[in-house]
């Protein structure tokens, strides 16, 4: 049952016992404020006293959802129109991009999914949804020059027929992502699927830990596979990071990863060394004619250079994020397709499952391992000049890998 413009006006006359003129005025306000939206000519928010169909608007979502829905809507439009957005839409899109940068993949995925799902809908439903969306955003994000009627109301529980709402499809998609994530990581979860060659806690054999240590000549297959799950997985594994660095060196873009690591060091390092580290970064990566100059857009560069005058822990954040996403979108996918990665995957070992001992009640000897505190102490002793009392600063030791990579970057 689709109310027509005429029906709405008649209803208002009856409900409020008012004249046609007043009812037209009130009805017009309802459309203007988004309580009701037209299915014909959705860009013209007017109540027509004729056979034009209208519909009631859905509830507005929470602020966070709103940001996502807005971004997804623009992403869809961007995809559909292949980048031909209106100027104010483009601006809004880039603002949103910065705001939820870290879940951008999710947004693009959802936008594509919605476009695909809409193609499968009945034409009538599709038109309704498109009009609904268009009207919604017209009011919530009006084009420049159009009077902005903020604060759309919530009410008007509406159509019971095509339960198509902006929000519930979104929620179902999120649930789907949970399922996908657990499927992807299932084989990597030792409690669920066991681990090869055996779980050390059960078999008392530390082979699993030895094979997956930071520095091994050949990594395990599961470990190399994991690098392909996300860019973060690759960077969090010291060996993965090293391999990626080797790849970038071949591509002559290793300065990006070096820059990112130097920024991480600023963010997580000692407060007392922030100024010194920021200066180093400027000298090596940002100054005009720098040895390892990184390619950042002019706006971010200006902002960063301004911030460097009064360095603080987060001064490199914008630039770091820019380079991170550059690597993620560009170098990382290429690395996964490269021979370097494919060879690594091919020669990666798949450990044999340890045969269960015939007498399972016999316990193996449990070997102890060197404490990380000891390893760090030895590294420090190797460097320390005079003998000195064990100092509180000893604990602030950069790991061997980072140190080596940093030296590589600065050499």
């Amino acid at each position: 049952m689709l109310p027509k413009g005429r029906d709405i006006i008649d209803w208002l006359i009856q409900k409020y016992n008012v004249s046609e003129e007043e009812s037209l005025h009130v009805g017009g306000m309802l459309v203007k404020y988004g309580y009701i939206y037209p299915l014909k000519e959705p860009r013209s928010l007017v109540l027509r006293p004729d056979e034009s169909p209208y519909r009631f608007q859905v509830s507005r979502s929470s602020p966070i959802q709103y940001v996502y829905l807005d971004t997804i809507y623009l992403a869809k439009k961007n995809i559909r129109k292949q980048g031909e957005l209106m100027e104010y839409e483009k601006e809004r899109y880039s603002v949103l991009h910065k705001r939820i940068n870290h879940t951008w993949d999710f947004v693009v995925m959802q936008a594509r999914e919605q476009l695909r799902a809409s193609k499968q809908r009945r034409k009538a439903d599709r038109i309704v949804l498109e009009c609904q969306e268009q009207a919604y955003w017209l009011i919530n994000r009006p084009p420049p020059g159009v009077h902005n009627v903020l604060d759309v109301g919530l009410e008007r529980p509406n159509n019971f027929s095509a339960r198509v709402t902006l929000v519930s499809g979104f929620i179902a998609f999120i649930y789907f992502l949970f399922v996908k994530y657990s499927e992807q990581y299932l084989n990597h979860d030792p409690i669920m699927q066991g681990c090869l060659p055996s779980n050390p806690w059960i078999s008392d054999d530390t082979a699993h830990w030895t094979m997956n240590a930071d520095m091994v000549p050949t990594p395990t297959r599961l470990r190399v596979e994991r690098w392909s799950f996300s860019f973060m997985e690759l960077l969090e594994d010291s060996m993965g990071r090293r391999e990626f660095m080797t790849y970038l060196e071949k591509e002559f873009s290793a300065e990006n990863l070096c820059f990112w690591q130097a920024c991480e060091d600023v963010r997580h390092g000692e407060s007392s060394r922030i100024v010194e580290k920021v200066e180093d970064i400027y000298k090596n990566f940002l100054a005009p004619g720098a040895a390892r100059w990184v390619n950042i857009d002019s706006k971010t560069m200006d902002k960063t250079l301004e911030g460097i005058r009064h360095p603080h822990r987060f001064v490199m954040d914008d630039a770091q994020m820019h380079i991170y996403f550059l690597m993620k979108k560009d170098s990382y996918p290429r690395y996964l397709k490269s021979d370097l990665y494919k060879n690594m995957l091919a020669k990666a070992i798949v450990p044999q499952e340890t045969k269960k001992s015939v007498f399972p009640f016999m316990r193996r000897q449990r070997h102890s391992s060197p404490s990380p505190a000891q390893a760090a102490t030895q590294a420090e002793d190797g460097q320390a000049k005079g003998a000195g009392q064990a100092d509180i600063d000893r604990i602030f030791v950069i790991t061997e890998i980072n140190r080596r990579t940093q030296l590589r970057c600065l050499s």
Partner: protein
Amino acid sequence: VLNFKYRGSPLIPEMATQEVQLNETLAHLKTESETLKSKLEEERAKLHDVELHQVAEKVEGLGQFVMKTRRTLKGHGNKVLCMDWCKDKRRIVSSSQDGKVIVWDAFTTNKEHAVTMPCTWVMACAYAPSGCAVACGGLDNKCSVYPLSLDKNENLAAKKKSVAMHTNYLSACSFTNSDMQILTSSGDGTCALWDVESGQLLQSFHGHAADVLCLDLAPSETGNTFVSGGCDKKANVWDMRSGQCIQSFETHESDINSVRYYPSGDAFASGSDDATCRLYDLRADREVAIYSKESIIFGVSSVDFSLSGRLLFGGYNDYTINVWDVLKGTRVSILFGHENRVSTLRVSPDGTAFSTGSWDHTLRVCDDCYFLSNLTTLQPRVTFLVTSCNVCCFSLFFFFLSDLGLRMRTQRMKW
């Protein structure tokens, strides 16, 4: 049983009437906000067509898991309150009511370091990412960092560095990505970020209306947020840079004792005194699942996910550990073993096991018992083994008998 949780301010006689009036207004406002809240939930529910377990219907069920204790760490003289894993996947730091903080190699069950804090009820402890230090605190309102020295003669307490200072007890602490910064939560209702080197306060987080009991750092790419849970039944997500609360969730019916991020960083689980665990999604900005059972009536003290996020482990005040299927919402295992309430639970960094600490003075490292799943491969061997043993035994027996018989005959002949 010591109860620190903030319940209300003491009444000063002169201000009694004012206080009563204020309380009445507050009560009225509270009922109004409750009504609005339930109305909002009603509207939300209308939009919320689908549940997580419905979407997960096609996913293969898990069947029954059998969990087994692999190590028991004995050494604390009193209730174990907190524990944390080292990044080397085998070492653990634990703290207890009597002020002792112990570092164990859980694999061998050897104690490697022990520190006695100057206060009792050390409710928070954390291992530094480098493995070279531990942080702890409790009733002393402070968080102190102890570098781990391997010199047996050296007194660890001498090297102690006081980092955080709160105005009430320390409930939780965690190092951020490096040894240089610590995040703390306190009974004074705030969280704070500290610089370890200088002891300087970098950022404070205000927003909870009562004690903050737990926190967890997000594993996200930008690494800038964390979640906290408190006695005000709220779970808040904070931006570490600005100190702002960016999201808040209030669906629990009692104190939130534990919060833990889902491995992807897009959601987090919470455990509460209302005997439920709940899953909240940050993108959907809502609660997406409740893990509860009518037979479970005791509060949850601690929660953590398995590596893939498919399993949620919960340590309960009724001495048990319940394991939940995150997607389907069902319980897949229950583990008995502790003789008093489970106060802390963490899955190891590589997900090979999980550890629990309890008021029964012990810590346990537990795992899935693969016996049942591997029974089919074991059975032929077992049968072969049993048969061969039997054959050996009988043959030995007959040999022995015949030997005895031979000897007796020889003996008789001798006579």
